[in-house]
């Protein structure tokens, strides 16, 4: 475990990055961000995890899905469940709502296209929406990238009391602005090129959290 004296800049940086991540972060990506070997990342993370356990925190550092993430200590689940039931999580966040709205009105479209319109990474939000059964994979882009295309589900329509997508409120005279057209095109281009130049890794797993 790490005592106060041994807590290094690298430990602290790992804590900070993992705090803002909304899905497990692979040792490879962490290694890249901290510019240290992946093996060293694994050592540091193990030290952190041990230190949390010894200190008896309400959170743990877990190794799941090929990466590390903060999660709640299992014995505290009753408290977390109460919060989830009564607290703020009982409604769709503004980010999730916007993402869902884009999928609803623009379907079918790829994750990259949604991200381009929203201007932020949407992987986490899209996954939540999918888990909740509001959106689903409906097709594959016939283009080279063969990106998965998403659309809304039957359940989504039922929850909103709509008969079909035609019943969505009309956008009226809404004309997409130049920036949106560009965003859509950029989304397509990202799909085709398969990897945005700036992203750390092509895979969705290591993407930054959505704001």
């Amino acid at each position: 475990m790490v005592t106060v004296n041994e807590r290094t800049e690298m430990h602290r940086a790992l804590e900070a990055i993992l705090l803002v991540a909304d899905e497990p972060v692979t040792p490879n990506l962490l290694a890249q961000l901290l510019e240290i070997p992946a093996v060293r990342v694994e050592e540091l993370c193990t030290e952190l995890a041990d230190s949390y356990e010894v200190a008896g925190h309400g959170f743990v550092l877990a190794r799941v899905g090929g990466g590390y993430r903060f999660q709640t200590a299992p014995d505290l689940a009753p408290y977390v469940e109460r919060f989830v039931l009564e607290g703020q999580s009982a409604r769709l966040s503004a980010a999730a709502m916007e993402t869902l709205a884009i999928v609803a009105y623009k379907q079918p479209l790829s994750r990259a296209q949604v991200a381009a319109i929203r201007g932020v990474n949407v992987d986490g939000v899209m996954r939540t929406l999918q888990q909740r059964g509001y959106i689903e994979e409906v097709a594959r882009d016939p283009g080279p990238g063969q990106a998965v295309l998403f659309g809304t589900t039957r359940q989504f329509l039922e929850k909103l009391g709509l008969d079909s997508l035609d019943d969505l409120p009309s956008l009226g005279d809404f004309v997409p602005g130049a920036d949106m057209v560009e965003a859509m095109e950029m989304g397509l281009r990202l799909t085709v090129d398969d990897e945005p130049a700036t992203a750390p890794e092509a895979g969705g797993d290591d993407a930054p959290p959505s704001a």
Partner: protein
Amino acid sequence: MPYEVQTAVFEGPFDLLLHLIMREQVDLYEVSLSTIVDAYLAELDRMQAAEGQLDLDVATEFLLIAATLIELKARRLLPGRDDLELDEEFSLWEERDLLVARLLQCKTFKDAARVLAHLGDEAGRSFPRLAGPEEHFLAVTPDLLAGVTPAQLKAAFLKAVAPKPVPKVDIRHLHMVKANVSDAVAELIDELPRIGRISFRRLTESLVERLEVVVRFLALLELFKQGLVDLEQALAFGDIDVVWLGYERAEADLAMAGIDAYDG
């Protein structure tokens, strides 16, 4: 007097005046008001050159301040005018004090804004955790779409696709968004059904700028043309009464959907 008009773009007449006074602060006696007035006229020229045409809304504001300054200057050039009415004299002082008060206000918020921006920069170095509950808690999470209406979904979509601000670092720019008749129409359709009948004077009481009043008037003419309101004027030059003819909001929106949006 060697004097170069700033290349900076000024946010408004107070901004410019404040800049001029602050800049000359060390040697105020050397600054004649005519220099300031010259700077105003130069700024108007610059605006006209930059925009291709003079924005009357902005130009009026600048001219108003420039006129006040000229009046103050004239007062200085003609000292001891015996025939100056006491009222006139007072009103001149009042004008000056008003101007100083507004400048002080402008300066106060300018400085406050700088501190707020600093706070924002500091806070921006910390990132909040937004991950939410782990997936195994999803089972107990209530239905997230409960209470969400299709209209809210539409609103969220429009918000999502609204143009994003272009990232910029502290570049001053002139905002000259004009009052817009279709916006005014929308406001009136919102307000009038609740009020029923109101005089034009009262309807525009809260508006500060003349252009806004003009735009409201144009908006009323549009509503009149579409048969949504009646306009009554009992006496020549008397108050104009606006009467909402009792349509539902939705009907009104529909009737106005087709009108041309043009700038006031």
